[in-house]
């Protein structure tokens, strides 16, 4: 079951304790007086939730919807639990707010265990594009993720094993905060990911952000490679100049660069004539988003 919850700063709660019905989390939220919208993907749990809904007089709303399959790539009529985010938000009466406004909706839930990584990538893509749920503003995600994935999310430069493209992209886009470690045995971490208010200021736009994503992916594909080699292959001889401008050491390896530095590097590259005219930069870094979620 997945729950959406809408109090003053509205919260979408996805308590996906499938098999347990409305979980402890829901109860707690309801008891705290929050307005909860339950997004339930499993038809089997709907009746129970619906009876709860009826008893709560509007505090709980139940929608048959699989949150992690919002906005699928296919087109045509959508049958629940698949759904367009537009329709979901419209039905819930949530209006889009500017990116810099406060968090309009909070979402709580469990990342689907088997495809944690893919789901996170999907969030990254839509966040940088400001599409799907992020068209409505800075949606705050509160997700239970495995400890392993949490380590990747919060990895620091130099931790070559876990510091990956995902880490850089997510840290650039969000503030990441560990709220809770659930059940020592499960090693599940409740992580809050709040999109940064200033994500789309400076050089980053929804159009060029895909270039940023691909730049980071290309750089961190091999974390022990030298940054300058990457840069030079995109635009010959321009690497050392741009690194000097940014006061980044020339011999740095890609796994040692901070997310902020990647962002500054990207902005500098976007402004530089050499890079924006380079064939490879353009072609390789084009967004070939053919990921199957």
């Amino acid at each position: 079951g997945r729950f959406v919850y809408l109090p003053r700063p509205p919260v979408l709660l996805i308590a996906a304790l499938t098999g347990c019905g409305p979980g402890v989390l829901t109860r707690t939220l309801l008891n705290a007086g929050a307005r909860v919208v339950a997004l339930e993907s499993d038809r089997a749990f709907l009746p129970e939730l619906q009876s709860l809904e009826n008893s709560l007089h509007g505090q709980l709303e139940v929608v048959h919807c699989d949150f992690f399959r919002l906005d699928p790539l296919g087109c045509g009529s959508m049958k629940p639990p698949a759904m367009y985010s537009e329709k979901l938000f419209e039905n819930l009466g949530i209006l889009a707010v500017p990116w810099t406004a406060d968090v309009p909706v909070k979402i709580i839930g469990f990342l689907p265990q088997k495809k944690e990584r893919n789901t996170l990538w999907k969030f990254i893509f839509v966040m940088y594009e400001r599409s799907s749920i992020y068209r409505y503003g800075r949606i705050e995600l509160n997700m239970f993720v495995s400890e392993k994935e949490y380590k990747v999310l919060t990895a620091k430069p130099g931790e070559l094993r876990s510091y990956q493209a995902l880490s850089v992209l997510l840290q650039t886009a969000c503030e990441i905060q560990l709220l809770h470690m659930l059940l020592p045995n499960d090693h599940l971490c409740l992580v809050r990911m709040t999109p940064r208010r200033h994500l789309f200021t400076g050089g980053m736009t929804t159009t060029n952000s895909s270039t940023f994503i691909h730049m980071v992916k290309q750089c961190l594909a091999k974390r022990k490679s030298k940054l300058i080699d990457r840069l030079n292959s995109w635009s010959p001889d321009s690497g050392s100049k741009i690194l000097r401008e940014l006061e980044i050491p020339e011999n740095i390896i890609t796994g040692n660069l901070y997310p902020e530095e990647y962002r500054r590097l990207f902005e500098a590259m976007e402004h530089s004539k050499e890079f924006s005219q380079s064939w490879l930069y353009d072609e390789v870094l084009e967004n070939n988003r053919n990921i199957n979620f």
Partner: protein
Amino acid sequence: MWQPSSHPVVRQDPLLGNTALGGPGQLPLPRSDTLAKSLSFSGSWGSRSPARGWGEVTHSCQRSVKLRIWGVWEATRVLEARIKQLQADNISEVTVDRVDVAPLRKSSFRCPAPSPAGKEPAAKVREGGVSSSGAPSQPSRWVEKLKKEKWIKHKRQLKLEQKFSAAASPPGAERTSLPVLEQGKAAGAKESQGQAKASNKYGSIQLIIMSYLESCLFLHQPERAQQCLMFYHRSHARRKLLGIKMYDILMHGWANKGSLNQIGRLFVMLEEAGLKPNLSCYAAALECMGRAGAPAAVIKRCVQQLEEDGFNLDELFRDAVYEDDKREMVLKAIRIIEPNFQPLSQPHPEICTSPLLRDFYSKEKPVSYPKLDFSVCELRERFRQQLEMEASNTVTISSVESAKPLTEQARELLTALRSEWRKSLLQTLRESKIHMANRRSWQMSLYPYLCLLEDKEYVDIMLQSLSSLPPQGESLLVLAKELGTKIYNKYAVRKKSRSRLMEKIQKVYDEYVQLLAKDAQLDSYLPREYWEKLEASSGSSLLSKDCTWPHILMVQLGTHMVELLVQVIKVQSNILNPSLEAKLIPVLYHVYSFRSSRQIGFIKPHPILTQILSSAAETTLTFDSFVMPMLCPPVPWTSPHFGAYILLPTKLMRCVEGAIQHQLLLEECPRSNLHSVLDALNQLGNCPWKINQPVLDIIISIFNAKGSEKLSIPPPLSEAPKPSVALHLGPGTPWSKSSLKRELTQCRKKMVEMYSLRMDSLYKLSIANHMRDKVFWFPHNMDFRGRTYPCPPYFNHLGSDVTRAILLFAEGKPLGAHGLDWLKIHLINLTGLKKKNSLRERLAYANEIMEEILDSADNPLTGRKWWMDTDEPWQALACCMEIAKALRSPDPTAYISHFPIHQDGSCNGLQHYAALGRDVIGATSVNLMPCDSPQDVYSGVARQVEEFRKQDAQEGMKVAQVLDGFISRKVVKQTVMTVVYGVTRYGGRLQIEKRLKEIDGFPQEYIWEASHYLVQQVFNSLKEMFSGTREIQIWLTESARLIAKSGNTVEWVTPLGLPIVQPYHRAKSTVVSAKGSRGTGSLKPDTVKQKNAFPPNFIHSLDSTHMMLTALHCHRRGLTFVSVHDCYWTHALTVDVMNQVCREQFVELHSQPILQDLSRFMLQKYCTHSL
């Protein structure tokens, strides 16, 4: 010199390290060490380095002295304990090897029997107590050491167990640790059953070592090879990787040099490693003795040793493989002690055991096989042409693409650049070689592989691949593999020509053509039989026992080449536009492409290169010679190692990259089991072909005009869609920008697709054009299920409609009484019309539209173009032309036709299932039962689905109502066809979705739901119609699941005796780097794939069996026969005979207890241990 009695202590020397590998519980008799020692001693005569030989002996003497001091029986006792311990060690170590993947490396978690070592020796002491008066009561140092070792081990064990249970306790970790445990258990259990799989013994690391040794020997550097072998031999852990073959390779290397003492040393090493010398080792020793002129006593002792090992001299000449003058040398040595020795050179006649072919091979009456329409001289001449082509390794032919004007300047530029690149590549290659040669390490490096060819040849190979690099780049792995394969092929050819094998093959072939040529009388042999006979009488084997390089080695070598290319190839950035600033920039780039969650290394060329290449528009294409069809009848397959091309190495069985189990299985199985399969392949390969020139000309004209997507002639890139200009002018709102980007991406994607299609067509047409006046052959090999394929990759009769249309049988036969009718029926079959009508009706229809047919034949591009609207337009056109010619000939029945008539199985997989399950309804629907008109299973299924739909629609199901009027044969066809081959609901839905999208007027918003619904109904209908099929499928799947779960791969044997193994294993990614990589151990079978693929693979193995049976019997009856899997081709004259043979053989095949045999085989193979 060969007097073991003079070294009594040596006999006692049990070589402590490896006794455990001998028989359990007893001291292994040092069998060959006496030979080894004597050989070492023999170093004193005529040898180069006596010091080494002596060193070996002194060493063992010291050890034996030590033993004597401690007392013989005491040593025995300790040793026995040690054996036990090592045995225990051994088992657990093997177990651990299998769990390599797990974090718990190098440690055992299987508890050996609790301290058996302490008690049992004591019992033994009492037993042996007769010989000595009293056991020393205080433990010797040896015993103490042993105890200590045991204790440490025990402690380690405890620690590990603790760690293990600790790791297992948090539920979070369970996911990773549990399977490991199971895996270990399974492996351990299997090991204790003594089922050490041979495939593990010669896995890819072993192949790498063998390739390395062979390469060193090829370079005449046995010292380097010896160093490598010693590197592995010296360490106990590494020694386990070695097998008898490695020592054997080196022995032959030294034998070639006549260094007897080195061979002696190797025998010592064999003993140390606990390996038993094989026949080939003795052959090497004797060869060496023959070469070095060893004294009779030495030879006598060696032969004695050979016989003690259970071999005899006749076997030596029958089973061992000799190259060059090795055979003569061995014979020379033996004749020193037995001057009158004459080897029995009788090829042992083995009769095919399959009941299906017993009659075929028994040959009570003399049989006659068809001849080729060539004279002996012509065939010999053709062989020489083919040999020349293969020896030169590449073929350059002219491209059919019409030349563009004004390319002189660009071509000059390209030539200049190439010579510059050639120079710098040559230099860097040499530097890298020097760098590698200077590295002091006994470990394997790429160095020898970089010396096999001339430096120049490596550079040529690199530049060749640079020219054929597609503009969008190529995956590093593919590119590296291609380069590595090219080097390997060149090396293999060179090796063969150097070893005089080439001359011998030529000699045998010159004789062999007597069997095929029309002007020779010889008959009643199958090609393989005659070739074997010739080979046997020629005295030396044509086989080379060299190992093929493993996939990983080719990739490593190729990666090194790619690395060189990336580093070295540079170009001035302003070369095409001098106004820009000059900068030397690389031409190739490493980039990553991301697919799903994987990242793939790509090599991408700078657009400058693409531009130069395209504007130079070179009018020639360079291919590896195996890409071309053969110019002479292929060398017949006589073993899994030999056949097809003359020099180029070809695999009998194609395999997925890196899989070696097929080859091993083929080597292990009795040779007579393969006879029928080899004969069928030879027969398919012996069919001569020629080009249908008028059709080729029409195709080329369209190809050089704008192509035609409708006629599947890919248009040139100039026809590619361009991004619309309007968007460029847009003011740059984020929306239009991103949609522009999307459009650009789409265009680029389309370009890439078009490019690869265009190139593929260009290759095919250019090859066809090159062969336009020639007669040629397609050598065949097969995949792991026995399905046969022509070896040349681009141009062959398996290809698309276009390529099939330009192929004709080189041999012509008169149409005969029914030939013309068959031509007409064939034409209608190609159109895809009249599927439901009987043959008679199809013939009538052909006669009805004869005017259209003749118009198509006469004015293909200007007339009414009837042929263009058929299913297979090009073949239809070719057929129209043939009909026209036949009709207009004075006597159509005498008209000589080269045209292949196809007879297609109707859903062949289902036919086999229906026959296996004796499904009457199913069998009727796939035309296994006599019927008035041809049945069409697809229509049948469609009808059934429609019935289900009607019911559902009546019950108010929305999607069933929406689908009203949309269910047709076409919608379900692909799914029905592939369901036999294991298509899942998921795949089936995608297929149906595609079909629904093609239907105009189908409400698109229902596509997902409708396809989902339909695939379910198709499955239900099939279940209804083919009840037996379903049960068989379930049984096969379940068996495969259990087999895979038990840690085995699924194997079976076809009714012809071909052994089959499914090569699906869990993927284990290896990072490839030029510096070297770690070998992959034995892999765990991929249960899902093993299970899902078994039913279709089994059915494929049956359809290939049926095809081979038909091929052999057609050959017997004098027919030309080729096949495209379940579609059989022959001349119009002989269609009736072929159909008869086909039916007879189908019945014959299914009269066998196929499923019972399979069940028996599986029970015996996988279940005997538990029974």
